[in-house]
């Protein structure tokens, strides 16, 4: 369980990092905390020629508020998010979810950008971005563009990134008209959930993003519409059929669907209480 030989690069600017990424033409991987990548390399599942450590890129750090949007630098660690007053005040959903994300040791190194770029279907952060209607700011050699979270996650470990680095996350500031809920079902605290959901409610509209249930974090528009109509929960839950639930050793797709329904029901109950 030792990683194969690789080059370790530590650029001091975003431009330098992008140049290195281009130079290695797909054979280099950005290192943004390494809480998933390093174990994958030690298992020799991932074997990049080079790691480009983003730790020194000041452009990827900092949390600011401007014009109703919180901008979170991609290299912000979970531990920093947890203790940040801006995030606590303006994005309460992230505050609700963070204690469920792994453990202190992982949260001290893991970054928000790293998690989104990996796009692990069981991770909490992609679902939070979907529920919050966040935008992902990505920068390539030629341009910076904004990708809506809804368009960012394309499949298991698959994103819309194209030779680019995530530079920041843009999340709308929570309004008094909004309420939030988060619930995940794990046998052990800090594990990947068997099923979980993050919900942002704005007036009578809902954005409900499920995670740990399919090949990516997933919203179901018909289910959200049913919530808006205030359909009976039994009816709401039937729209879960539209998710292609995962089968694995911990739970088959039937159990997962059931647990997703429990997570949704319990989250909504908590929000109305």
């Amino acid at each position, binding site marked *: *369980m*030792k*990683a*194969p*030989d690789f080059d370790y690069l530590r650029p001091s600017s975003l431009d330098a990092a992008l140049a290195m990424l281009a130079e290695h033409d797909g054979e280099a991987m950005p290192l943004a905390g390494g809480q998933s990548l390093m174990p994958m390399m030690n*298992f*020799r599942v991932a074997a990049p020629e080079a790691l480009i450590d983003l730790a020194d890129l000041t452009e990827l750090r900092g949390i600011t508020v401007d014009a109703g949007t919180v901008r979170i630098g991609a290299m912000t660690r979970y531990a920093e998010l947890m203790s940040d007053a801006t995030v606590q005040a303006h994005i309460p959903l992230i505050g609700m979810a963070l204690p469920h994300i792994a453990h202190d040791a992982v949260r001290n190194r893991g970054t928000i950008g790293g998690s989104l770029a990996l796009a692990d279907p069981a991770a909490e952060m992609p679902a939070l971005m979907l529920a919050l209607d966040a935008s992902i700011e990505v920068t390539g050699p030629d341009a910076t563009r904004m990708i809506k979270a809804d368009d960012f996650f394309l499949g298991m470990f698959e994103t819309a990134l194209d030779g680019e680095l995530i530079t920041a996350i843009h999340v709308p500031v929570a309004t008094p008209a909004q309420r939030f809920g988060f619930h995940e*079902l794990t*046998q*052990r*605290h*800090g*594990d*990947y959930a*068997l099923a979980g959901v993050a919900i942002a409610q704005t007036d009578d509209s809902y954005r409900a993003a499920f995670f740990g249930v399919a090949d990516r974090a997933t919203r179901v528009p018909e289910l959200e519409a049913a919530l808006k109509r205030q359909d009976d929960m039994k009816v709401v839950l039937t729209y879960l059929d539209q998710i292609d639930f995962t089968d694995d*050793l*911990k*739970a*088959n797709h039937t*159990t997962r669907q*059931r*647990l997703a329904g*429990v997570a949704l029901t319990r989250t909504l109950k908590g929000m109305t209480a």
Partner: protein
Amino acid sequence: MTGPAHIFDKPNRYIGKPEPRADAARLLQGRGRFVDDEKLPRMVHAAFVRSPHAHAKILSIDTEDARTSTGVIAIYTGADLAEHVTPYVGTLTHMAGLRSAPQHPLAMDVARWQGEPIVMVVATSRALAEDACELVDVDYDELPAAVDSETALDADTPVIHPEFGSNLAWERDVIAGDIDAAFAAPGVHVVEREFRFGRHTGVTLESRGTLCDYDPSEDQLTVYYSGQAPHMMQVIFSKHLGLPEENVRVISNDVGGSFGIKIHTYGDEIATAAAAKLLRRPVKFIADRFESFVTDIHARDHIVKAKMGITGAGTIVGIDFDDLTGIGPFSMYPRTSAIECNQVLNLTGAPYVMENYRAKGRVVFQNKTLMCQYRAVGHPIAMAIADGLLEDAARKIGMDPVALRELNLMADDSYPRTSATGMKLDDLSHKRALRKLTEIMDYQGLRADQTEARKDGIYRGIGFVSMVEVTNPSPMFYGIGGAPIASQDGATLRLDAGGALHVSSSITEQGQGTNAILAQVAAGVFGVDLNRVKVTTGDTATTPYGGGTWASRGAGIGGEAMLLAAQALKDQVLEVAGVMLQTGVEKLDIRDGAVTDLEGNERLPLADLARTVYYRGNELPNDLNPELIATRHYRVTDFPFVFTNGAMAAHVEVDTATGFVKVLHFWAVEDCGRVINPLLVDEQIRGGVVQGIGGALYEECHYSPDGQFMNATMADYMVPMASEMPDITIAHIETPTKTSVLGAKGAGEAGTGGAPAAILNAVNDALSPMGASIWQMPMTPERILTVLDKAAE
């Protein structure tokens, strides 16, 4: 010999006191010396190419590219090492009929489990060795695998060792009374269940590892070894590498947990020793976590069909069961893989008065990792069968499970006696333990809470287990069957010139506090301050000869040897003191580092006595030749084992929407005889309970139908973690064993052996309003939802 009252009742005696362990500060400051901390000049590193298949013929091995890879020193195949290592077979003569095939350190022609070592690469670093492993090209012809133990004996299942004609490794029947007649008697209710116990493993914090150093000038092999039986390993290295026994030194410094995992013959470790001998330089092998999962011995994996008969008034008339267990492709050497099944046959129902008993055990080969003795060997299965059926029967006849136990447990004043299976029992306290348990847990209060909570749709359950625990094994356990495993242990105490004690013992420390209790016994019985005792364990060159620490034998056997040696040294010192002080020995004692009169008044500091002996012997009479060093050995006689007993209870809440189980509280009352250090015993029991909860709710080695281990990572194999663990309340009853002066019995198996049955019973108690019950461990959310759905149909 001074009697027990004299030793234990005087002030400043340490035995029974919650003394903090002396080595805790060292370990917490990162100054532990685990195998991977050892670094020797010219040391090189081993990595292994392991079989990716559960069963495959090895057609060819091409190592050409790997040999030229950076840093590679040597590459060995099974055939290469077979020239230097004799094969070994995991059978013992007292396990009649047990068969197994010869094993080589690296597979020869056929690979028989996924993870079996095939090729060894030695390189200047572990990373470079792994790089070279990727360049080794092994051509396999994959064979159909025998994976499922239930079909292992079927005619169309591949036979792993064709010379045996079937995959049966061992079978045994135990019959007492007439079970058929007992079950058929009028008024007898019979409950019947099929239990399934998942395969799990030990998951030690420090993985297996060894550093082998060979010095050709003296033909000397020194092995730094993370393990619990140094003298056993000395014999094994000597025998199979062709070295004189005295030329093998096995050193186990700090060991980061073992639980029975590190007490066997692993091919990768033997290969490491062989490579060190061939290369004439130190070779280190540290198993990584993946290697640990696929090669450390696994445990459990039993399917049991069981029945219990009970009268309407609640008298158990008998137990009848059939246990089938899969052990992998070989019986592990040298302890064998039949012991767990044998324990199940011996221990099931042992706390209860019962005349009729019929048990069949079958042990089968399969293409999975080898199974062998993990903490609480056989106990969780035996306890779950008897106490699971007992609580099922209690529900059937409408009797409280505590009342039903009261009715059937052996009376505390009825010993010595034998169990239905013929086990000799003495000094047990089942009824007192159960009464104390219901007291400390407030049983009636919990039942009231249960009733109230159900009204709100909250399903809580209370489950019990009454158990026996095999500890302090005699020569009847292994020695009688021809295993090179010492059943006795020794202790040496030496009084130094400064008045301190240097003591050594053949039992071993693997994190549970062995060294601490040895010091307490030595200091207390001899009479010096605890901080003036230095302890050495885990080195075949410097300790007395003995078995090590396993089967809860350390305190009971090693502790007794220390007590006897301390007493002997005390007698020697008092003889010298008597001469020096011109006083009768019977008027002297040793307390707080000085020879005293019987009232405790100091007469002569030990340092003065020792200096006189060592430096100024001219002051002593010529016919007095003081030794100031004493060694004693101890083994259990008259009994094959010394049984410990206990009673435990679990309080759980089952979320019927998700199938999640939360353990709210756990209680254990243990009678391990004399408690030497309550802090350490309590933590042993707590740690054991946690491992038992792991077996009950979380831990399982999942295999695909073709024998691939599917969850061999710490992310996918779930061990219990601190956040989910309940408070665990411990209480003691002390019924010292009459087999020793110390009176200590083992306590290491208790939690792991008992907790699964208590949790199972608690979950089934919680599920009972829905008419559901579960008999498979681990009790995962999905399995609980499945039985709830079935009950709702």
